[in-house]
């Protein structure tokens, strides 16, 4: 306790100073005297509360952590049914969940479906970044650049050449993949912090380019009126453009604007299912294992005949292509994009999703993506504190489950021995 006293006092002091700064308490010259502004009695009360709280937590840190140790940690694995039963149940469970996801939008409100669509976009982004960060261990802080490339590819092709969403989807993926490859080349030799800084710079370059290339991208005004996806040429609008037909006319039903929302949700769901399938396969393929091996030990990889250049580039390329798909869909859903949608904070959120979910774990990343999009919506009243909550959740996670929500499990391969 004695030993904890000094650090506790120090922490309290730091808390006091930082809180005052953050809240905006400042000294102002009022004639010959200095007065404190921006602080009424209630604010002082809260500051005092925060200082005392920090002081006490620091002071009783050791007994607290001892208590924490004694608390039973939840064992998720113990709650699940046994291995054999589980492996038999899993396919059915997955089928049930997928079926539920397809039926669900027809029963709930338009707002929820729209939110779910947004969550699905983040799932796709999280899964894509998971390839680069989780599997290959390459810290990428500029992932949003590929998202932007995908979005602008569709927006520009649609605006200038009138290409449809479905034609642009693969093009956007390819385009983003190309950019991934371009980014990959200069950073081949970099690792860790250095890599993070270069990718961060790359993300900013793309955003600033989009912002300033006004002739083509419209600059900060962005591009609006981007065409929505169609169902085999059937539009989801009230009136069809010339030479085409709308969905409700074709099926002879009344026009309902929620049709489009549900349709977009279903498209996003299909894209996510495709992403999950591909990544699931890739993880078990030689290239997926090579990514992980490269993360573990690059020199050993070389000594075993694996070409690190090709493997790193493929990770960047593949990760980027999923961001491209997501970007293309995002542009189609919003109908309007501007560089503002692709700021660094987006990269940070996607990275947070990967870290919270557990590096390399697919299910974890999916859950984290859903949580990260839905929680801020549920807590709308606390909008201003969103970043604060964000930070708080991150700190807590790092303390309690540094490996993420659901850490990756090694695939167990069955041996056939004679």
């Amino acid at each position, binding site marked *: 306790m004695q030993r904890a006293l000094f650090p506790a006092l120090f922490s309290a002091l730091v808390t006091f100073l930082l809180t005052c700064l953050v809240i905006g308490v400042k000294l102002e010259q009022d004639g010959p005297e200095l007065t404190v502004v921006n602080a009424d009695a209630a604010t002082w009360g809260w500051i005092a509360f925060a200082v005392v709280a920090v002081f006490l937590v620091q002071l009783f840190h050791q007994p607290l952590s001892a208590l924490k140790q004694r608390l039973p940690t939840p064992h998720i694995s113990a709650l699940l049914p046994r291995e054999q039963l589980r492996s038999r149940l899993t396919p059915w469970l997955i089928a049930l969940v997928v079926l539920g996801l397809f039926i669900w939008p027809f029963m709930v409100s338009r707002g929820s479906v729209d939110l779910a669509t947004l969550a699905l976009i983040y799932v796709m982004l999280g899964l894509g970044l998971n390839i680069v960060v989780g599997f290959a261990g390459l810290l990428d802080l500029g992932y949003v650049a590929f998202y932007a490339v995908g979005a602008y590819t569709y927006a520009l092709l649609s605006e200038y050449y009138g290409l449809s969403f479905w034609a642009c989807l693969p093009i956007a993926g390819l385009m983003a993949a190309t950019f991934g490859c371009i980014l990959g080349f200069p950073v081949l030799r970099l690792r860790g912090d250095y890599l993070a800084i270069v990718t961060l710079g790359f993300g900013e370059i793309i955003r600033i380019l989009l912002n300033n290339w006004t002739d083509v991208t419209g600059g900060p005004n962005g591009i609006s009126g981007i065409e929505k996806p169609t169902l085999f040429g059937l539009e989801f609008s009230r009136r069809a453009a010339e030479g085409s037909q709308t969905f409700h006319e074709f099926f002879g039903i009344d026009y309902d604007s929620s049709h489009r929302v549900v349709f977009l949700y279903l498209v996003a769901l299909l894209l996510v299912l495709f992403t999950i399938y*591909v990544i699931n*396969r*890739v993880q078990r*393929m*030689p*290239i997926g*294992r*090579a990514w*992980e*091996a490269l993360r*573990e*030990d690059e*020199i*050993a*990889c*070389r*000594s*075993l*005949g*694996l*070409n*690190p250049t090709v493997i790193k580039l493929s990770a960047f390329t593949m990760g980027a292509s999923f961001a491209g798909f997501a970007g293309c869909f995002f542009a189609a859903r919003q109908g309007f994009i501007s560089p503002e949608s692709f700021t660094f904070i987006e990269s940070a959120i996607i990275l947070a999703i990967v870290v919270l979910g557990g590096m390399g774990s697919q299910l974890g990343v999916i859950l984290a993506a859903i949580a990260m999009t839905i929680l801020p919506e549920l807590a709308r009243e606390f909008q201003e504190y969103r970043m604060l909550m964000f930070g708080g959740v991150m700190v807590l996670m790092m303390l309690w489950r540094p490996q993420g929500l659901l850490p990756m499990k*090694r*695939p*167990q*391969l069955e*041996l*056939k*021995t004679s």
Partner: protein
Amino acid sequence: MTNLLEVSGLMMRFGGLLAVDNVSLTVKPHQVHSIIGPNGAGKTTVFNCISGFYRPSGGQILFRDQPIERLTGHRISRLGLVRTFQHVRLFNSMTVLENLLVAQHRHLNTNYFAGLLNTPRYRKRHTEAMAQAVFWLEQVGLLAFANREAGYLSYGQQRRLEIARCMVTRPSLLMLDEPAAGLNPKETSELDQLILQLRDKHDISVLLIEHDMGLVMGISDHITVINQGAPLADGTPLEVRENPDVIKAYLGES
């Protein structure tokens, strides 16, 4: 019989330091060839030059009559010349079996679409790789640990896994950098047996750096002694043991 590996006049200079000075050695097929020398003699540097982790400043390295001194590490390894490291370098968070599958990357079907669609040809290659992995796990006695993460193995097991991981790449020359370092006497004698087995049963040549003289003298067919970067002696264990220069280098002048 032609030579498997022929190193002649190998030089390696780091700035002003001449770490390897005119070293030559010849490894014949079906042989255990050891490189010994005091600490800091430049043995590992020779290894790094041969395996392509350093680019030698001079000299020639022929592997099966093909010059390899300009090739990068992964290309050399693909030719069938695979090495281990002084410190164990496993993929620790991957399972034992995955370690062995990664090593067979080149032998697997790496076509994206074949893998995505799980085609019969892809599956066939995978099954073959698994069989190869199981075979070598049996050889080094690690079959029971196949699905355990490599980082959780004991040190001796990690050493053996490293050798197995090299062997699944189907090399013709295996280079071991101090494989017995940190092993207890029992594990060392097991290693001894394993190396002899590689030579006799699997027709592999082994190039060995080792400080354990018992091991070296017991299993080597040929020994090269290096001292301060320069070759000191070369010959059979018996010749080397009686060479006065070698005794002087190891025990000091009397």
